[in-house]
């Protein structure tokens, strides 16, 4: 591995990462903008209002992609954590840290849009249903991980501590996935991943899928940008430390 580094080995070099992500980012941003515009057009002018839910069904086009990103964000944190614990991959650390606030935001967005939809549909902003509760716990896990990053100053130690916690917390993801099947309460079971019979009419399904892809692309744009910022932040930190050292050495020489 030391002689011929593979793709992931080369990614460990922050300069290579900055170059690659800098090349990819404009294209990805453009793709996101186009997908978002197409998706929003479809949502507002193509998708019909539901015969029961009326126009409130449009909330779903934000809610479902946010909920999906809440879970995908945590999966990315978990995979990156495994990468940083096993291979000590320096960019895995950065990837895990950068994904946390973005994932937390989408989790919060899923919770808020869900409760805005719940008020007219279920008659209440919040129910202690299994699915809602487990997403709320996912949000708390995000907050705990972010707090742990803040509490430990040294980045490498904070990264490994957060990685351990993230892997322990990843036990929560399957619980979210299966909670609807286990408890069968108010929240509807998954309707997208059923292959046998389409539960959603194409006029709703197509805009929803476009929005899903658009949101996913948006996540990666934000994630790559946050990772680049984190790499640069660490460089600035290192530069400042060397400046302080140099200043101290200068003072020592004068004294």
């Amino acid at each position, binding site marked *: 591995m030391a002689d011929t580094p593979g793709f992931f080995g080369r990614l460990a070099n922050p300069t290579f990462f900055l170059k690659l992500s800098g090349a990819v980012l404009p294209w990805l941003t453009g793709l996101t903008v186009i997908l978002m515009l197409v998706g929003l057009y479809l949502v507002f002018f193509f998708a019909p209002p539901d015969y029961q839910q009326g126009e409130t069904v449009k909330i779903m086009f934000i809610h479902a992609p946010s909920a999906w990103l809440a879970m995908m964000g945590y999966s990315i944190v978990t995979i990156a954590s495994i990468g940083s*614990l096993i291979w000590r991959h320096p960019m895995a650390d950065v990837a895990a840290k950068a994904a946390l606030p973005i994932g937390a935001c989408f989790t919060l967005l899923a919770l808020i849009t869900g409760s805005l939809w719940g008020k007219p549909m279920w008659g209440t902003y919040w129910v202690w249903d299994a699915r809602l509760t*487990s997403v709320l716990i996912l949000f*708390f*896990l995000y907050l705990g991980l972010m707090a*742990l990053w803040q*509490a430990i100053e040294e980045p490498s130690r904070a990264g490994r501590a957060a990685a*351990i916690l993230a*892997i322990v*917390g990843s036990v*929560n993801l399957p619980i979210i996935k299966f909670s609807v099947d286990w408890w069968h309460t108010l929240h509807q079971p998954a309707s997208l991943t059923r292959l046998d019979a389409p539960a959603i009419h194409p006029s709703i399904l197509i805009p929803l899928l476009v929005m899903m892809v658009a949101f996913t692309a948006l996540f990666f744009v934000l994630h790559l940008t946050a990772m680049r910022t984190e790499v640069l932040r660490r460089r600035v930190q290192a530069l400042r430390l060397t400046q302080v050292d140099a200043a101290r050495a200068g003072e020592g020489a004068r004294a």
Partner: protein
Amino acid sequence: MHAFIRLVARDVRLTLREGGAVSTALGFYLVVVAILPLGLGPDLNLLSRIAPGVLWVALLLAALLSVERIFHNDLEDGTLEVIALGPLPLELVAAAKALAHWISIGLPLVIAAPILALLLNLPANAFWILLLTMVTGTPAISFLGSVGAALTLGLRRGGLLLALLVLPLYVPVLVFGISAMNAVITGPASFLSSYLILCALTLATVVLAPIAAAAALRLSLA
């Protein structure tokens, strides 16, 4: 194995002789359970309906208070480094300390629970179930807590951070412990299915948590 039992016995003895560790946890448990009826009103029907939940949540909080000390004292006086250098793998050290926490703090809280249940008018047929589910569930609380204690070892504001990190992980234990009790009190759900999941949660935690705790301890000791 010998060293493992010795370590458990040492930690239990230290906690019991420290004075205040066990009684603080018990006192906190009593106060939390006693203060809730003041907020909710003295309606005995309401209290008996929410008794399982109140007893479990208060026990969680009382146990959480002392979880921080699983590794803290030993890190401060350097014992932890000596133990880490010894023959026992760090995973077993973490397991021994979590087990000692369960014996010295968890078990007394469980034994106090039926007495506090009298205050909340818990139905008479639920007392044995209360003891059974709590004896089964509390090891998971100690072992998960040891992971949080190891992660926050030596940090400023470690105690508050510990609660933020660990409480979300306690949710499955809480849910299945209470649903097993409610199955007996109100029916019609099956007691056994919830109880067996609670057993599974505890067994999985007892096996997996020491690995995570040991990994976290290596960070603080390095």
